[in-house]
Every structure is written in structure tokens, then in C-alpha cells.
């Protein structure tokens, strides 16, 4: 499935915040986790993730610290802040509203093009 760029970009912030709310993490692991969560449907590029991480850090929603990987390599770890959790709650409410509205509309019109029958 080809997910449009706009949709990927819009869902990127809530996804990163959610993954960091699960546990502290770093760039490569976040991209892997996104792949797992979306069963490989969402493929993020580094050009999307790292600037996003830096922006969230500047806005105080996440905190980055330099640490070391298992093999002793320099690695930047990220942690969600209280502001980030509050922002995530907002994102969650917004996305639930959108998704509920879509599902309700599709159920009402008995439309179902989905191959997986997710909305059946």
C-alpha cells in the first residue's frame, strides 16, 4: 500500500511520541519499531525521522542525551518529557476523532473497499 507523504508526515509526531512513551529509544530502533507497528507498511526515511526528533527536542517534548551503544559507539538516546506526554494525549484525542468519524461514515454507507476488512 502506498501511503501518501502528507499522511506519513502527519502521523509521524504521534508515532514517535508513542514509541518514546513505551520506552527510551534511539533513531534506528525507532524506525525499526515503526516498521513493526505498521507491519512494514510505513517506511520512514532518516531524512524524516532525525529532523523531527530535533524539532520535538527544541519544543521540549522530548529530551536527547549522548550515550553509548552496546558496542561502545556514540549514540543519541531520546526520552519523552511531561510536555511530550501532554502533547501525545492531544494527538491521541485528535486521531481518535478522525478515525471514529471515518469509521462511522463508512459503516453508515456500508462502504468497504479494505482488503483486510478492517472496517467491516
Amino acid at each position: 500500500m502506498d501511503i501518501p507523504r502528507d499522511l506519513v508526515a502527519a502521523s509521524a509526531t504521534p508515532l514517535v511520541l508513542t514509541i518514546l512513551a513505551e520506552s527510551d529509544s534511539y533513531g534506528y530502533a525507532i524506525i525499526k519499531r515503526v516498521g513493526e507497528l505498521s507491519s512494514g507498511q510505513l517506511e520512514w526515511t532518516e531524512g524524516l525521522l532525525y529532523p523531527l526528533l530535533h524539532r520535538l527536542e527544541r519544543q521540549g517534548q522530548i529530551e536527547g542525551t549522548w550515550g553509548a551503544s552496546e558496542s561502545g559507539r556514540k549514540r543519541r538516546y531520546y526520552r519523552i518529557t511531561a510536555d511530550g506526554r501532554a502533547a501525545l494525549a492531544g494527538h491521541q484525542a485528535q486521531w481518535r476523532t478522525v478515525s471514529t468519524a471515518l469509521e462511522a461514515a463508512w459503516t453508515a454507507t456500508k462502504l468497504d473497499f479494505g482488503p483486510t476488512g478492517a472496517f467491516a
Partner: protein
Amino acid sequence: MTDALDTQIDLWRAHMERHATVATTDVDELEDHLRGHIESLAAAGLSDDEAFLVAMKRLGSQDDIAREFARENSKRLWKQLVLGASDDEARSATANGWLPAVLFAVAGAVLVRLPLFGDINGWAGESYARAAGVIGLAAVVAYLLWRHVQGRTLTVAVTGGMAALAALSLMYPLRSGGDAFLSTMLHVPVAAWLLVGLAYAGDHWRTTEGRMDFVRFTGEWVIYMTLLALGGGVLMGISALVSSAAGVDPTTVLTEWILPCGVGGAAVVAAWLVEAKRSVIENMAPVLARVFTPLFTLTFGVLLLVVLASGNILDLDRNLLAVCNAILVLAAGLVLYSLTARSDDAHTGWFDWLQVALVAGALALDLLALVNIVTRIGDGGWTFNRTVVLGANLILLANLAVSAWLLTRVTRAEGGAVLRLERWQTALLPVYGLWAIVVIVVLPPAFSLVNT
């Protein structure tokens, strides 16, 4: 991992670091990412070479990454515009050219010179002085509107705003050289400059980024204007010496032609230089902020000492009070300006503490000034001048107090503190404009300074 792989990664690093928009720490982070990916691919059975190639392919082209990083790393709208908009590159090449700038500069010079043909000692001269802010900046506004191709609504709003401001500045018959006359002269440029900002930032004026970009533009414009003024001053001095030596009196030509035309033209040329030679000043701005912040902090210390040593804290000299106000405005400007020079990944350091000291000094001085003004009002009642100064000082007090509080949070490296400081400072910009309008429009009749 093998040495060959390390060499390849080092080569990739070297290429990556050559991009101005990608910081070294960004490359560190990307390298960790690349190596992590290569490890997992190698664990899946690929050879080092294969894993490197696949990981590189996933990482995307270097230019793409550099561009994405530029979007985030740079708070400058222009970089986003340049990097994002490949469709009108041809246009931006023309727009950066010197010819349009020179044409607008000539228009600016003519605009500043034309009113001088009128009766300069009579009504024309007075109107000229009162609307000087609008006359001097009209060409800059026109140039920016043309340069940034703003929408129709915005163009109409800015043009209408300039015309309205000119009308407001001439609305009342004021005594020439009187208090209201002088304060109108001083406040019209403030409002006019905010219209320049609107022409510059366009539809981005509502966003903090757009306003910060305008603040940066302002700082760089002032630097270029100062440089041009210095150069122009030297040239005028030399011409004066040469023509005096040749027995010709140069005063008329210099003061009535060269000076006004030069100022009108330089305003546009400075705006063009900010736009066209950005990378030069971009490196200069942080240096200047770092040079002047300590100097100003020192000045505040000295001023406070002078005031305290005079032993007359409640009865400061009128002129000293005026100097205090001028310096306070400069300090507020400096805090705002050094904010634009701050890089995103800047670590909390001595400079932040110095800024706290600067703002604390300014606050002390502002409180002192306020106490004096209030005492004067208490003793001698409300006057036009006291009200104008009181208003400006109250705005400054609010600005400095909140800035000081936010700056201490920056020194504690609190996440998002810098962003909050930027929001606060840029939110105040329209307030300055509103106060300027109040001073021009409301206060003169309120204190019956309008001639009937």
C-alpha cells in the same frame, strides 16, 4: 566490522559534513544509524559490502538528507524557500540581482529628496520631519513587496498601512519642535518599521518563525546601514576637504543632495544586501551579539553605579533619564537580536548567564527610571512627555521581567525554554506598534497639544 567498511563510512562522513546545513552531531547520529542498519543486515547474512550498499540506498541521497536537515536546523525562511522551491530558481536569480535593487534605491533617493524642493522652513519641512519614517522606508517596503511577491491582500494592507500612517502623522496641527511634534517624529518610524516587517515576512507574520526572521532581518539591516553610513561619512568628509581646498563651498551639495539621497538609497541597498549576501552576516551576527552583550552588561553596571553614587536616586537629571531610556531600548533589542543568532543545538553556557546579567541590569535600571517618572508625575502631575516615557518604560518592564524569568529557565537547560522566549519576544512586536499609534494619535489631543 572490517577496516574496508570503516574507510567507506569515513568517506561518507566526510561527504556528509561538507553540507553546511548538517551539523557534526547530526552526522554522528546518522553514522550510528548507518552502522546499526549495516549490523542487522550483516546478521541477516549479507557481506559487509552488500550491507553497506543496501544501508546507503535506504539512507537516501545525501542531498535529500541535507535538505531535510536544513528545514529543521535553519530557522530561516529563506533556506526553506530556496531549498524547497526549485520551480522559481530563475526568478530568485533575477530577484537577487543588483539592478532591481539599484532601481528601487534610486526611487528611494528621489522620494527622500523630492519633499525638500518645497518650502523647507515652512509647512513642507514640518510635514517632512513628521512623516520622515514613512518617506524613508516607503522604497524599502516597495522593494520587499516586489522581492517576496506577496499576495494581493497583504500588498494592499501594507501599502494602505503606510498611507494611513503618513496621514496619521500629519493629522494634527502641532507646534513645530514641540513635545508632541518630536514624539511623533520618533514613533512614526517604529510603526513604519513594523509595516516593513509585514512586507518582509508576508503571510508568515503570524508565526513565531516568520517574526523571528524579520527580527534577524532588522538586525542585519541595521548592521549594513551602519557600515554604509560609515563609508558614506568618510566619502563625504573627503569630498568636503577636497572641494574646500579647491575653494568651492560643498555644504549645500552635501547636506541638501548627497545626504538625503544617500540615506534614501542606502535603506534599500541595505535591505538588498541582507537578502543577497546572507551567508556573510549569518556568521557575523552571533559574533556581534557576543561582543556587545558583555559591553552592554558593563555599561549597565557603570550606569547603576553612577546613579547610586549621585545619591539622588529619586531625582535623576532629565537628560540622564533620557539616556537611560535609550539604552534600555537598545538592551531589549540586543536580547531579541542575540536570540536570532542562537543556534538550535547551542548548549547552555556562560553566554546565557551573561544575558541574564544583562537583563537583570536593565530591569534594575528600568525600575529606577520608573520610580523617577512616577515621582515626577506625583510632584508635577501628568504631562505629555511623562506619559509617553511612562508607557514605554512599562512595556519595557513587562518585556524585561518575563524575559529574565524565561532566560533563567534557558540557563537551566529546560526543554522548550528558548522557544517560549522567542514566542514572548515576538508577541510583543505588535504591542510596540500599538503604543506608537497611541502616542501619535491619542496622546497629543489628550494633553491639548493640538493647535487650534
